[in-house]
């Protein structure tokens, strides 16, 4: 097996004390960066990139990718403890992770998140190791219609599989789509809805919105209701960790499904963000009692985290093989590669074997070391919840503000964040779900561009979405999911399925 030999070679390149130390340093830095909301992976890697210029490429990329793994692990911590997602793909982790923390099961939720991250990445790395060449050619099959079909699938799965009232999901999604339109429109090259303001030129940054919608609004709610974080001193020990692990086999279907979704969307350039949402929605769909999702169900942590990390890891593949970064952090890593004279592209795998296999080997090692590292620090992070709310709340608000500012170095974004905090508070009060809003904000632009490019390319013919097997099946699946409640009901009526229809409010 050629791949296996190359991988062993990769480990040989890697197993020196110097590289291992760099790996640890990278992971620790990454976790810290991931914990600060907004600062997140991309900024962390960007800040630390120049540190690596004097290193040789392999050591440098090992350190940077470990910062990346660390940030991926770290992102889950704030999502679970404070309802503040650090990266786009941590949003779905908050749905059940945060309720769990409120019920005093923070340690359990964190263990679940870290473990499933590990499983997701592991599956993705295995995939990269053995199927790299095949996957790169699969990614090339994606033109504008295929991209649009994937985005459509994500949107439809939200409406069709969501727990909330359908009309509220649609309202929330439409508002998100509206705000996604602010700023420069790539297809026409014109400005939209900026009203002459230079601040609005950039458009509305997704992370700024998320920090406000989730983080600030949570603080507002807490202040109103009880002035205390509901989390209780979580007793954390090896027992909790082992307890979660013992239950793992029960969720093998969820883990496998999410890994699959994650890998598939990760290698679709730019699809990584949708993965965690899809993983979550499908887990909910196939669960025996979907109503319990969103109220602190461990499966609701497993599903999005596995998918997010499988996609985060497999997103490195299109970056290496095609030069297209699948995520913000991957984009910065891409910049790093170029500095070291390694041009990502089809020939990277042929011409720089040492580097590529060293990196792949570091994915294995980095994940194992990372898992151990984060698990040992769970007690420290979980104990944050024991600090009185009055002391912790200002710190959260300040770190949210720093995070929002750091994304684009813009004071305006802090005001925007506060504005979104109020919007999030109101939404929660009137029961409009926040997730479709954030999803629309992050994917709205891409979906619109992909749709319009498809239309230009086909001369305005909608049949382009069924023009080949790949795009046709994704589009059809999207429409089936959109009307799933109706289809499910019909099937139940004609007696095709025993399944009792889940009543939507």
């Amino acid at each position, binding site marked *: 097996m050629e791949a296996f030999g190359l991988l062993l070679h990769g480990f040989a390149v890697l197993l020196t004390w110097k590289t291992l130390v760099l790996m640890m340093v990278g992971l620790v830095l990454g976790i810290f960066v991931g914990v600060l909301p907004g600062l997140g992976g991309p900024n962390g890697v960007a800040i630390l990139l*120049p540190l690596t*210029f004097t290193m040789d490429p392999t050591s440098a990329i090992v350190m940077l990718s470990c910062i990346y793994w660390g940030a991926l692990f770290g992102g889950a911590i704030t999502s679970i403890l404070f309802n503040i997602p650090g990266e786009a793909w941590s949003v779905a982790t908050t749905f059940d992770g945060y309720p769990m923390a409120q019920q005093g099961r923070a340690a359990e939720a964190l263990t679940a998140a870290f473990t499933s991250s590990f499983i997701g990445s592991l599956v993705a790395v295995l995939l990269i190791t053995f199927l790299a060449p095949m996957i790169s050619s699969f990614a090339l099959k994606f033109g504008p219609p295929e991209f649009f079909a994937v985005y459509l699938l994500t949107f439809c799965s939200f409406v069709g599989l969501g727990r909330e009232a359908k009309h509220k999901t649609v309202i929330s999604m439409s508002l998100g789509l509206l705000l996604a339109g602010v700023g*420069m429109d790539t297809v*026409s090259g014109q400005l939209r809805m900026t009203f002459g303001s230079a601040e609005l030129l950039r458009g509305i940054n997704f992370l700024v919105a998320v920090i406000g919608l989730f983080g600030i609004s949570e603080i507002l709610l807490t202040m109103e209701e009880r002035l205390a974080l509901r989390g209780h001193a979580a007793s954390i020990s090896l027992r909790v960790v082992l307890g979660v692990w013992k239950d793992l086999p029960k969720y093998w279907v969820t883990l496998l499904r999410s890994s699959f979704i994650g890998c598939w969307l990760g290698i679709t350039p730019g699809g990584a963000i949708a993965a965690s949402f899809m993983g979550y929605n499908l887990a909910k769909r196939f669960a025996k009692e979907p109503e319990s999702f969103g109220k602190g169900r461990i499966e609701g942590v497993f599903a999005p985290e596995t998918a997010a990390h499988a996609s985060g890891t497999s997103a490195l593949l299109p970056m290496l093989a095609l030069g*297209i970064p699948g995520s913000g952090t991957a984009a910065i890593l891409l910049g790093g590669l170029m500095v070291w004279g390694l041009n990502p592209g089809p020939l990277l795998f042929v011409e720089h074997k040492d580097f590529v296999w060293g990196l792949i080997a570091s994915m294995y090692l980095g994940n194992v070391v990372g898992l151990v590292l984060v698990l040992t620090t769970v007690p420290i992070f979980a104990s944050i919840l024991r600090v009185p709310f009055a002391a912790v709340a200002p710190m959260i608000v300040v770190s949210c503000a720093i995070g929002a500012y750091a994304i684009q170095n813009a004071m305006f974004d802090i005001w925007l964040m506060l504005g979104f905090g109020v919007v999030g508070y109101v939404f929660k009060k009137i029961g409009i779900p926040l997730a479709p809003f954030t999803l629309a904000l992050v994917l709205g632009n891409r979906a619109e561009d992909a749709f319009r*490019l498809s239309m230009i390319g086909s001369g305005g013919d909608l049949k382009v979405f069924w023009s080949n097997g790949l795009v046709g099946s994704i589009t059809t699946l999207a429409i089936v999911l959109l009307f799933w409640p109706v289809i499910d009901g019909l099937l139940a009526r004609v007696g095709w399925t025993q399944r009792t229809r889940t009543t939507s409010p």
Partner: protein
Amino acid sequence: MRIPLKAVGAATALLLSAPAFAGWEPTKPVEIVVAAGAGGASDQMARMMQAAIQKNNLMKQPMVVSLKGGASGAEALMYMKSSEGDPNKVLIAYSLIYMLPLSAKIPFNWRELTPVSVIALDQFVLWDNSAGPKTVKEFVAAAKAASAPFKMGGTGSKREDHVLTVFLEQKTGAKFSYLPYKSGGEAATQLVGNHTESNVNNPSENLEVWRAGQVRPLCVFDKERISYTTKVTDTQSWGDIPTCKEEGVDVQYLMLRAMFLPGKVTPEQQAFYVELFHKVTQTAEYKDYMEKQALKPIFLTGKDMVQFLEEDDATNKSLMTEAGFVAK
């Protein structure tokens, strides 16, 4: 080229007189502002300069790359405009400084910034998929014969790539459907995946897929061939690509890569950066980069630079007007 000799002369004069200004140097990390997304040609160039400056100890303060590609690069322009008097920010500019104010009515004028130096000129090449037509003539014939829209990928709308497409249409009589992607890298992959029939990417954006034999360069939009003759693929060098004029399609376009400081900085501060970037152009990193990415070396500063910018601005303006891309 008439400029380089004069430019080198001017630069040397400046360098010789440098001790007179030796007073100023940055006291904070210097931000190099990129008006494009990660991985694009501007970003690659900024990273190269960052590495060249750090490895050769050209400056005491570190240099950080700050990506401000929002709103098709308008974000970077407005950021520079609002940083008046701040000598710790340098913009790595390209033709967007002329085009964006025209097409999207961005309230920006490059004359409000402080010019430092022009450091390179970038080429444009007409590419198609390696399974597509082999010459410009066959390519044009295929475009004319196509029943479905013949797709040309590019970066952004109403910008360099789009302008070139319009002029290709005018000169050949063929009709293209222009697909504006977010980056040159994306345009390259879409061509490899056969989702478009062609693109007009910069050499750097298609280099890797060319080396992998997935795309074919048809012609270069310049009056002379690219001067680099080292083999890039097994059989071809940059210099082997014919000019479009040779192939009977007389369309020419070169794009500047230039450094600017915000407005209202002192002459000492300006002089520091002129010297800094002059030193950068002497480094091995810069020379390597120029050859690898097939850029045209050039170094203009002071009056020569302003004159170049004025002429270039006029050229771009007339191209944009003729293409019908100027917003009313």
